[in-house]
């Protein structure tokens, strides 16, 4: 969720779970596609190329979730909340929409941003020297872990971010 900066607020960690409930979270699978047909997976650290600050996984979450990852957190994961808490989060989202997202919207389509396209090409070309990059993709998986059980996380695709990098 978006919050103001600076603010004398600490995180609320409001979501609660009971035994048998699912803890739900997002997991990105980042990959680069090349002209020779190869698909190479990479971590957020490898993509961003510099350790925190800011944390690479948060850069990826903030930039490459379609529509903004804050929307996902506002609508998808907070099930079983009290209505008061839900209302507070929606109010916060409305403030963000009004003041912050407008700025992002003014930039237009992210996939057409020439600076971002150039940066991605520079970052990805080293993964497979000699073969041009054709696309950058982030597959967002929604994963669930059931509280009180030791089963591995169950993940299913939720959203996909894709940038065609064949043209400059």
């Amino acid at each position, binding site marked *: 969720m978006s919050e103001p900066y600076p603010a004398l*607020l600490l995180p609320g*960690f*409001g979501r609660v779970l009971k035994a048998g409930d699912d803890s739900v*979270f997002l997991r990105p699978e980042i990959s680069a596609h090349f002209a020779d047909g190869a698909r190479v997976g990479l971590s957020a650290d490898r993509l961003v190329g*510099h350790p925190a600050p*800011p944390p690479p996984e948060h850069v990826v979450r903030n930039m490459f979730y379609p529509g903004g990852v804050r929307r996902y957190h506002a609508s998808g994961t907070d099930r079983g909340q009290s209505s008061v808490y839900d209302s507070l989060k929606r109010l916060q989202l409305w403030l963000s929409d009004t003041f912050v997202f407008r700025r992002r919207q003014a930039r237009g389509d992210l996939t057409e*941003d020439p600076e971002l396209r*150039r940066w991605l090409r520079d970052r990805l070309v080293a993964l497979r020297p000699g073969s041009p990059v054709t696309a950058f993709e982030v597959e967002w998986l929604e994963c669930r872990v059931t*509280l009180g059980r030791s089963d591995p996380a169950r993940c299913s695709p939720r959203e996909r971010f894709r940038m065609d990098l064949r043209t400059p």
Partner: protein
Amino acid sequence: MIGLARRELDRWLFDEYSVGPRSLGLFRILFAAYLFGAQAPPLLAHLARYPDVFFDPPLGFMQLFGGLPPAGFFWALYGCGLLANAALLLGWRTAWASVACTALMLLAFGFSYSFGKIDHNVPIVILPLAMAWSGWGSAFSLDALRRRTFAGPVLPSAGNPSLAILALLVGFMMWTAAVPKLVGGWLHPEFSAVRGYLIANVHGSGQQQLLAHAATAFNSHVFWELADWYTVLLEFAFLPAVLRLRTFRWCLAGACLFHLGILLILNIPSAGFVLVYAAFFNWEALAERFGSRSDVLAEKSAAAPGLLVPVVAVLGGLLGWGLARGWDVVGVALGCQGSLLGALVIEVAAVLSVAAWLLRGAGTDVQRAAASRRLRSSR
């Protein structure tokens, strides 16, 4: 009635949190050393290599920036930060150095937090500003020496509201963390909020270090429920506890244990918080031992503060860089993030200090301070 309330407010603001200048001076040195060690403000020159679309500032003054400035700006910001930290450490023009520390950290962290994640280290950022006119530069400092030499004005050693205001801010922050937990159902006996976050952290963010992974297998419902209650009650207790330094210290002591717990199982470092808490404890006994040596050092170095501040800034910068690399090397050897290990050392030290405080008889220093105030006023 109004007169009584006003007297009580005055007593709280000016007397309740009065700590001796030597104690504050020692804390200032500790805090400035921490800023060097924690690399605050950080060097962010690498941000200039990112595309401007990555710069997505949250609601606030960072919206005034249209994009990412060049690398030179971040180097200058870092350099000014080191100089401000050095001036604070040496106690040279302490009030202005304190204000500069806050302003530079606010700006640097503002850039860092414009990429999708805000770390909640605001207490560290506001502390120098809150303490700027507290008199924390009136002992163990070049300012103190200048005043002795030039007979300039002496800051009051007691009767200063800075610590009381800082306590109120910390209490308010804790309250903002407690309210969403309460309305979110943390106290419901069937829910395990801490455990839910632990699982999401381990599986979602891959935070499996220290005791995090082992804790996921710990199935005691009573333990996790107690963790939920401890968290909410502690966070709520801060604000009313602000009224008395002694009860506030008990909250701080409980919070040191709480922060160590969340570092161990949620891998969230809070070393900065425990440093802020240290401001509320009495360092007078340690100051006695530190006193004579620091006076000799200060007298030797007072002749050339203009030279000393940049030298200490460079040495502090190298120390911070060396410490970070050192923790990274140890972290690789132990299979753990270096920054977490650094925080672990500070937070364990805080818990041990709290244990020593409890063994020494918690609160006796408060009584001693009150007795000395009474003695002063009777004279």
